[in-house]
């Protein structure tokens, strides 16, 4: 079977349980089991090749740009792990089917489990370290789901997050390490990397890469000081614990260390980091395990300890130690999975897994007792079980190891660890199964149905068989896998047998077992000492850390983004000034090429008016009305300046925009209080003042520098001047630019205007649909109102003005192409003409006579402009290409026609519609259907009765 299929099957299979759960729990479990079985059989088909020493490969290019390819390969090591993952996976699926209760969503469970299984298989089959990273992180994610499976348990959620945080961060470190490794070698393919031991170990990046990769391995394999997540992951259902912590997840780190062993091991750095970590972990894990009362916690720490043992063996860096490591991986998987399942059975049937509440179960659960005892004895290293064999070999290796000049340190510590290991194994047997029968079990202990015990029983059979006939049963597998670990070359001499003679290892073993029995006998006293000892509680430290981190994040984020717009703006302006100034300093400024002009009287007066009104705005800005009036002054001065500087088009535009804007803003004042409150303290205001002065000076300086210099290149304006009449049919180049050269910009801008009006509409609509409306209507005016809302003179005057104003608009519109004017200005003038009616005669009066919805006018304007532009297509020309010509109809004078005028009509309509929609939106809050108000603008219908005497004409 293709390696792709083996790796993909669990992922494909993950879909079925999630769907099939509606067909029942058996369907879901069978689907999961069947896909796993299929993958397992597929793997087994490769046995001949693997045991021949071949590597099976399969590859597809995935992301060649990065060197990340879907390359898989299968050698002895991969085979061993894949077989464990899929084989034990099968047993776990069977076990879980009976373990989970009716309330647990089993479809989800198998879905997550298979995702996890797929990720694990992916890791061990990857021939590309980036691909391996993908699967590596996937195991973190899927285990997160598995550990947190019992959502309602806080321990489950916390454990899941802790596992994700620890293994996830290790995974991230490993990303960096792997990228470095690939950088050194020039390839991310494992098969290439494994050939480059010398290059890797000679590289200056070796140590950082090693540390980062090991961080990944150590966190995953729960090595000290990252071991603390593993016991808390026990909040998961027992099948998960059995799977993750015996055969799979925690072994992933070991796998990777073994995988990269040929290229990373053998250096002092490797030895001191890996062997030391392993040794400490082994010791610490074993000691803690003895004092745990929770069965699963005991097993969890024993797992930590055994993982440390294997890590230490890999860390020794000798070939024979690597062989032993492989052997112990197999043995640990068999007895530990069995033990976890046993613990699960006890928990399931007795209703508790607290050792203090158990005991005497051998009478009630004989089958479970048998299974648990054999597995625990193997864990303790009692002959003739398989645990004994690998532990002997480990002790043998440890006995020869010198650590920093000390020949005793490692053997002594290892013996102590083995002693604790024996002690907690005995405790598992003695305090759970032996002893008198009790009558206060929370449940009714009895042996479970066959489905639950058949799995562990099978594993225990293996434990015994490997112990008795190791060379026959495990020999070839160990040889093949170990051969893959040490990366070619001859396997060192070793022999898998029970009796090695009277070696140091035997004595150490005997000491450990006897010591273990003694420690068990003294357990009560030892526990008292242990409890009295101060020791850090990893979970609390971790959670405090995360809490502190979260709190800091919250404080930083909320403090930084406190919602104060002035501060945001201050930061932005300051940043801009600094960066702009730095950029300016980095270049050189050429000499000024223009003369400074002398200022006439008129400009000086204008300038003075501008400065004074600006200063007044600063002083008086809290009074909104005054500020608005002063802004109007600024606008007028600016438009006069345009006029003075021979820009009549701009002046016209500016002045009409100014009028319309000020009117609209005056209307908007109705929604607001008259004054702005003082909200910022003086220092802040001074700070902001200083920033604005600096920014203003900067902007002024920039403009000064620009105006004193000619263009460095000929400008495109010359072309516009030259082609305005010839190509655009108009002599007013400003208008031709607007409707022709850059008609597309204008098209965009009328849309902006139209949208702005729609936004004002939406804003006021939303406001007026809320209770704000009532508030506004009932508000007492804080200033006396004008007595006469509809002065007769004004009403009459505006109505007379209306046609005149519209004529002016038409005039401005039509002359636009050749003389100052155009659709934009004309639109504003027409809008002003209509606004006058609203002002003089009232909103109700004006609205009643208004036939076309303003939305539609905006829409039609944009549509006409667009349609004009598209008209060019039928002529084979690009969008917005203008056409013009001249018509001579007697008795009229010859006149010009231009499509640009049609475009300008669109502009006109859009402007009119936008301005009036804005006006309507802002002023209609007092208006209600059916009330044809008699008050101008309906500013406030609650005005005093006296106002009503000023009647309409």
């Amino acid at each position, binding site marked *: 079977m293709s390696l792709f299929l083996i790796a993909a099957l669990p992922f494909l299979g993950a879909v079925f349980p999630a769907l099939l759960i509606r067909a029942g729990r058996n369907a879901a479990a069978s689907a999961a089991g069947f896909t796993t079985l299929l993958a397992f059989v597929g793997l087994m088909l490769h046995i001949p090749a693997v045991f021949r020493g071949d590597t099976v490969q399969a590859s597809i290019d995935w992301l060649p740009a990065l060197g990340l390819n879907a390359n898989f390969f299968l050698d002895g090591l991969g085979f061993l792990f894949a077989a464990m993952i899929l084989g034990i996976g099968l047993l776990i699926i069977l076990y879980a089917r009976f373990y989970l209760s009716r309330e647990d*969503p089993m479809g989800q469970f198998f*879905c997550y489990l298979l995702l996890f299984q797929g990720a694990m298989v992916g890791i061990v089959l990857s021939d590309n370290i980036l691909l391996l990273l993908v699967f590596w992180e996937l195991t973190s994610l899927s285990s997160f789901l598995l550990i947190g499976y019992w959502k309602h348990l806080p321990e489950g959620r916390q454990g899941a997050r802790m596992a994700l945080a620890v293994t996830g961060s290790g995974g991230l470190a490993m990303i960096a390490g792997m990228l470095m490794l690939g950088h050194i070698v020039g390839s991310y393919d494992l098969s290439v990397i494994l050939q480059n031991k010398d290059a890797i170990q000679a590289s200056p990046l070796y140590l950082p890469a090693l540390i980062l990769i090991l961080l990944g391995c150590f966190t995953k394999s729960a090595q000290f000081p990252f071991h603390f997540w593993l016991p808390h992951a026990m909040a998961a259902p027992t099948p998960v614990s059995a799977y993750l912590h015996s055969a799979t997840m925690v072994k992933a780190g070991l796998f990777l260390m073994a995988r990269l062993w040929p290229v990373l091991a053998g250096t002092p750095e490797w030895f001191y980091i890996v062997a030391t970590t392993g040794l400490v972990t082994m010791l610490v894990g074993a000691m803690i395990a003895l004092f745990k009362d929770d069965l699963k916690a005991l097993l969890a720490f024993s797992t930590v300890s055994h993982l440390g043992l294997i890590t230490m063996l890999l860390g020794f860096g000798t070939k024979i130690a690597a062989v032993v490591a492989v052997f112990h991986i197999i043995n640990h998987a068999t007895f530990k999975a069995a033990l976890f399942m046993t613990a699960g059975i006890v928990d399931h049937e007795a209703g508790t897994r607290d050792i203090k509440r158990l005991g005497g179960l051998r009478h009630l659960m004989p089958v479970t007792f048998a299974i648990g005892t054999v597995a625990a004895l193997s864990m303790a290293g009692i002959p003739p079980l398989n645990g004994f064999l690998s532990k002997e070999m480990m002790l043998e290796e440890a006995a020869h190891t010198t650590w920093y000049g000390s020949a005793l340190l490692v053997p002594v510590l290892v013996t102590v660890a083995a002693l604790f290991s024996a002690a907690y194994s005995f405790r598992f047997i003695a305090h759970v199964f032996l002893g008198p029968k009790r009558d206060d079990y929370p449940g009714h202990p009895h042996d479970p149905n066959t489905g639950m015990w058949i799995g562990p029983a099978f594993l225990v059979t293996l434990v015994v068989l490997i112990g008795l006939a190791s060379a026959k049963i495990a020999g070839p597998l160990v040889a093949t896998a170990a051969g893959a670990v040490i990366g070619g070359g001859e396997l060192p001499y070793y022999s898998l047998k029970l009796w090695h003679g009277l070696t140091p290892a035997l004595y150490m073993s005997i000491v450990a077992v006897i010591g273990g029995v003694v420690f068990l006998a003294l357990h009560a006293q030892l526990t008292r000492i242990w409890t009295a000892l101060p020791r850090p509680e990893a979970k609390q430290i971790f959670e405090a850390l995360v809490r502190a981190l979260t709190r800091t994040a919250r404080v930083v984020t909320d403090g930084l983004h406190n919602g104060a717009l002035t501060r945001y703006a201050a930061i932005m302006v300051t940043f801009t000034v600094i960066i702009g100034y730095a950029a300016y300093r980095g270049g050189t400024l050429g000499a000024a090429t223009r003369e400074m002009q002398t200022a006439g009287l008129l400009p000086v007066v204008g300038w003075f008016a501008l400065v004074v009104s600006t200063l007044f705005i600063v002083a008086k800005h809290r009074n909104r009305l005054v500020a608005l009036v002063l802004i109007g002054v600024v606008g007028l001065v600016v438009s006069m300046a345009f006029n003075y500087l021979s820009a009549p088009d701009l002046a016209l535009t500016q002045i009409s925009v100014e009028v319309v804007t000020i009117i609209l803003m005056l209307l908007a004042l109705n929604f607001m209080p008259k004054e702005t409150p003082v909200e910022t303290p003086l220092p802040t205001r001074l700070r902001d003042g200083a920033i604005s002065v600096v920014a203003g000076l900067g902007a002024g300086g920039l403009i000064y520098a620009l105006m004193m210099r000619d263009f460095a290149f000929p400008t*495109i304006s010359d072309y516009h001047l030259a082609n305005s009449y010839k190509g655009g049919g108009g002599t007013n180049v400003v208008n031709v630019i607007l409707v022709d050269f850059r008609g597309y910009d204008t098209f965009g801008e009328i849309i902006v205007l139209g*949208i702005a009006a729609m936004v004002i509409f939406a804003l006021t609509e*939303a406001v007026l649909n809320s209770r704000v409306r009532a508030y506004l209507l009932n508000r007492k005016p804080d200033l006396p109102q004008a007595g006469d809302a509809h002065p007769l003179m004004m009403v009459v005057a505006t109505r007379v003005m209306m046609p005149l104003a519209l004529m002016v608009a038409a005039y401005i519109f039509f002359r636009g192409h050749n003389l100052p004017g155009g659709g934009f200005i004309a639109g504003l003038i027409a809008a002003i003409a209509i606004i006058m009616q609203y002002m003089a005669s009232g909103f109700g009066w004006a609205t009643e006579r208004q036939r076309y919805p303003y939305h539609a006018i905006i*829409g039609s304007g944009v549509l006409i402009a667009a349609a004009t532009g598209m008209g060019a297509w039928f002529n084979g020309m690009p969008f917005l290409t203008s056409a013009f010509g001249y018509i001579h109809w007697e008795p009229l004078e010859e006149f010009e026609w231009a499509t640009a005028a049609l475009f300008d009509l669109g502009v006109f309509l859009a402007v009119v519609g936008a301005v009036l929609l804005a006006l309507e939106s802002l002023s209609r809050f007092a208006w209600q259907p059916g009330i044809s108000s008699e008050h101008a603008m309906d500013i406030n219908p609650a005005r005093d009765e006296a106002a009503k005497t000023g009647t309409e004409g």
Partner: protein
Amino acid sequence: MDHLLIAPVVLPALVAPFIIMAVRHHIDLQRIFSVASAVLLAAISVTLAAKAADGSVYVYELGDWPAPFGIVLVLDRLSGMMIVLTALLALPVLLYAIGSGWDTRGSNFHALFQFQLMGIMGAFLTGDAFNLFVFFEVLLIASYGLMIHSGGTRRFQAGVQYVVFNLLGSTLFLFALGTLYAVTGTLNMADLAVKVAQTPAEETALLRVAAVLLLLVFAIKAALLPLHFWLPSAYANAPMPVAALFAIMTKVGAYSILRIYTLVFGPEVEATNGLTQSWLLPAALLTLLAGAIGVLGSRKLGRLAAFGAISSMGTLLIAISLFTPAATAAALYYLVHSTLAAALLFLVADLVIERQGRWILPQLPMPQTGLISALFFAAAIALAGMPPLSGFLGKLLVLDATRNDTMATWIWGVILVGSLITILGMARAGSQLFWKGHGLPQETADEPGEVPAVAAPVAQLPFVACFGLLFGLVVLTVFAGPATRYAEATAAQLFTPTAYIETVLGTEAE
């Protein structure tokens, strides 16, 4: 000349006014026209991108005025990619807005949506610096309208901040363009490139100011720290489908930086040399960290998604700030990914918010919790850059492309630590939202995909939209090879702008 090139702008510009004019009071008709327009837009964009994929540059001279005197639209690989991304994002977002009923909670949603699309498309296609300003205005004002859609105090407050801050940016844009024009006398981007390259060495100061002001404008849009302040509350308080569409808006800023700083102020240009190196990368690193920290510190789901978007912008800007072809290729791949991922997260956030409010608090299991939590999980791992989705590949590409940089240690450190913080934040939020509620009393059992027993029936369209985006991410992952090849070709085209300039100015040797 092929008029299809302007269709992405003209089509929504026709549909939107038609909607406000003719069918303003008929929501069904609005929906039909809006969706039809989005579908057509997608088809047009794909056609255009396919044309540009071979490396040709297409120019559309508006009003038949030759460049640099009139405005031109330019289609190359980058614009092609961006318009396709926009169109493919718009469709699911629109479907979501319809399915969730968001489009009926205020007026003119569809018209504004189309205008927004028009603005984005116009910005991606234009070859003229001032026209870019115009389209920035279009998309700003349309986005403001969408942002405050359906109203409410918080939304209005956030809206004011959004629009004021961005108007400051627009003012800056005008300063930049004025300066640029005053020095070079032109606004056409290709022509600017020619003129900038010829600028005499003793007159670089003003040009440099213009260049850097322009960059700051784009950085505001791209939410670069410390110019990002407008984003969190704006995105968090906008209707979530709108925020999902906004995922492309920050990319407009990123796109503009890429465009202008490869075409006009490219790495070889003497005059503007060294303008960005000293601060752009550190600012991008801080952006990533600020985003990640924000994800962890968020108490509301909308804010969490907004900060997620900021952190993804940080990663993107890190890659962009190096201005090397390899890093740019990585940036382009990541850009596509982060747009889809951020949009997905916003939509999923809306699914949750609609059911149990905007706070990240444990609550009783909501209807369809299995499906929603699965989607949240997917969106979270996508945005945090975890496998198996494209975020991980994008992150690897960025890390790989930056490994020879002098700041590589910082870049790697920040990206990886940022990922970790994001993961922590996402895990915290997910566990609170989807797990902790199961511990509350009145537990109800649930299965993935189980038909909800409580609450009103929910239309399936929102889920179709979410899965559509997720599907996009999956496609991007599976076809990462072709995608990166396209990104590399795009980057190569960007860093050899001769063809672009010659095609636009019509100076290429025939």
